């Protein structure tokens, strides 16, 4: 039988071990934390959606209502860029992503994604166009992609763009909200990632080339509304996040030809509370490397590779609309090791997060009076 002294010693030792364990587990996050200050770089932007950093230091910002704005020397220029295509700025549609061609310094090509309306009808589609940018104007605009068949609703466009290391362009498309089962079929562009050459032609090594009833531009399928896309230049991994319905937002690593499950396998419920599917996982369908229940509404992400925040090197940052925070995902060889919630003090919806060439983080807030916020090191 244990004596009173032995019991006390055992209790103290156990307590000490528990405290040590808690300190060790807590020190992981603490060691990764970084001091920062927030600076508003520009404000008064109508639902800013994305931004691009030009070699000369200018920053281009898309406004969902259809304007492309320029930030120069820390000030928003009053006049928008000319030559931007007319957009279908209804619902979630409008002017959305912007990406520079990998050889922008030589060819001045920028790529825009936007919603396009067919005549006066409800029919619409996601389009991607490229144009040459110089002196506040776009010229020689060329539409290189239009999602097919036409959409019926003004929601779930996807619309993120990213260039791969081999110069191929990736485009995300949404499921159009209605008839969501089409995301599982390869004969359409609903709920897909699309892979194109930089001129819009279809690469001959796409996974569904030559397959009957499959569109050759499709690279992966089974997505809902993917609004985050990045290519890790070092590992070659392609990360994509997508909105779930009520719960079930996902972060996936995308590989060619694979099926990411929507709407057959999902951790989310319909907004009504009903099930979308009996299955959360399904053979032949990829499992996300991270998912969020309840939803945070992820809407943009960046892989931090800058020098300003050494503690954040290699982390993925995810902007969240509903959650009104940015999630820092501590990554370990393609797996999420831990996550931290940041920038809640801003108290605004975050549309996008990007890494600037100066190593600072840039946040876009989602409102009629949206801001570009620069995150700098320092307390």
């Amino acid at each position: 039988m244990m004596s009173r002294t032995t019991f006390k010693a055992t209790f103290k030792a156990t307590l000490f071990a528990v405290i040590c364990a808690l300190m060790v587990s807590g020190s992981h996050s603490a060691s990764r934390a970084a001091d920062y200050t927030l600076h508003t770089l520009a404000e008064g932007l109508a639902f800013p959606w994305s931004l691009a950093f030009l070699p000369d230091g200018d920053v281009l910002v898309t406004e969902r209502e259809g304007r492309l704005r320029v930030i120069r020397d820390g000030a928003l220029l009053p006049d928008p860029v000319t030559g931007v295509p007319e957009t279908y700025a209804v619902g979630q549609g409008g002017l959305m992503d912007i990406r520079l061609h990998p050889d922008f310094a030589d060819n001045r090509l920028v790529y825009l994604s936007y919603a396009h309306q067919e005549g006066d009808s409800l029919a619409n589609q996601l389009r991607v166009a490229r144009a040459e940018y110089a002196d506040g104007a776009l010229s020689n605009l060329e539409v290189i992609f239009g999602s097919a068949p036409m959409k019926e609703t003004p929601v779930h466009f996807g619309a993120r763009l990213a260039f791969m290391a081999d110069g191929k362009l990736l485009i995300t498309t949404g499921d159009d909200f209605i008839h969501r089962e089409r995301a599982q079929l390869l004969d359409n562009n609903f709920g897909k990632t699309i892979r194109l050459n930089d001129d819009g032609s279809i690469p001959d090594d796409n996974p569904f080339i030559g397959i009957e009833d499959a569109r050759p531009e499709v690279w992966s399928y089974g997505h809902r509304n993917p609004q985050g896309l990045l290519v890790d230049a070092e590992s070659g991994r392609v990360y994509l996040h997508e909105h779930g319905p009520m719960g079930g937002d996902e972060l996936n690593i995308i590989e060619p030809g694979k099926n990411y499950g929507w709407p057959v396998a999902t951790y989310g419920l319909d907004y009504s509370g009903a099930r979308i599917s009996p299955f959360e996982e399904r053979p032949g369908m990829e499992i996300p490397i991270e998912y969020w229940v309840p939803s945070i509404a992820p809407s943009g992400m960046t892989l931090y590779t800058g020098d300003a925040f050494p503690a954040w090197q290699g982390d993925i940052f995810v902007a969240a609309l509903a959650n009104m925070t940015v999630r820092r995902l501590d990554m370990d060889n393609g797996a999420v090791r831990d996550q931290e919630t940041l920038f809640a003090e801003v108290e605004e919806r975050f549309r996008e997060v990007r890494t600037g060439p100066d190593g600072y983080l840039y946040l876009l807030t989602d409102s009629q009076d949206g801001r570009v916020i620069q995150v700098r090191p320092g307390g």
Partner: protein
Amino acid sequence: MILSRIIRAFIAFFAAVVIATAVACIIGTQFVLAALAGIGVDIPLVDRLATTWHDLINFGFIPSPAFGFSYAMVIGVGLFIAFLVAAALSYFLPRFRTVIYAVAGGMAILAFLGSSYFVFGASMFAFAQTPMGLITQGAAGAVGGWVFAKYSRQETT
């Protein structure tokens, strides 16, 4: 006498809402599962039953966190308004009382589902995105109307 009629009408209304909601939910779930089966997904019977039960409770009677209401609440409000109109019409057309209430019940659900097209540009409910889906939801409302007409009728001797 009057109190008895009120109590009878209240019970009939409650039964109409519960039955219409249950029928609408059960049918709605089968449309969602049929859409999945239509793209080649094999759904075992046990999963069908579990999904149907889940939806019956969590969509039918528990308010959705996203919407703030349940389908039963919507159907209840819809049937209440529709039955007021039906009562007025039945006064003038007593022979068609059951049909009038059934049509009113169906119209109540169709009006709600139709209104979401105008508000959102699409049905918020996957099961109501096809004409047949809409019609069957209307049929569930008609069942509710029929139940109310049958059980609220004043017995004559």
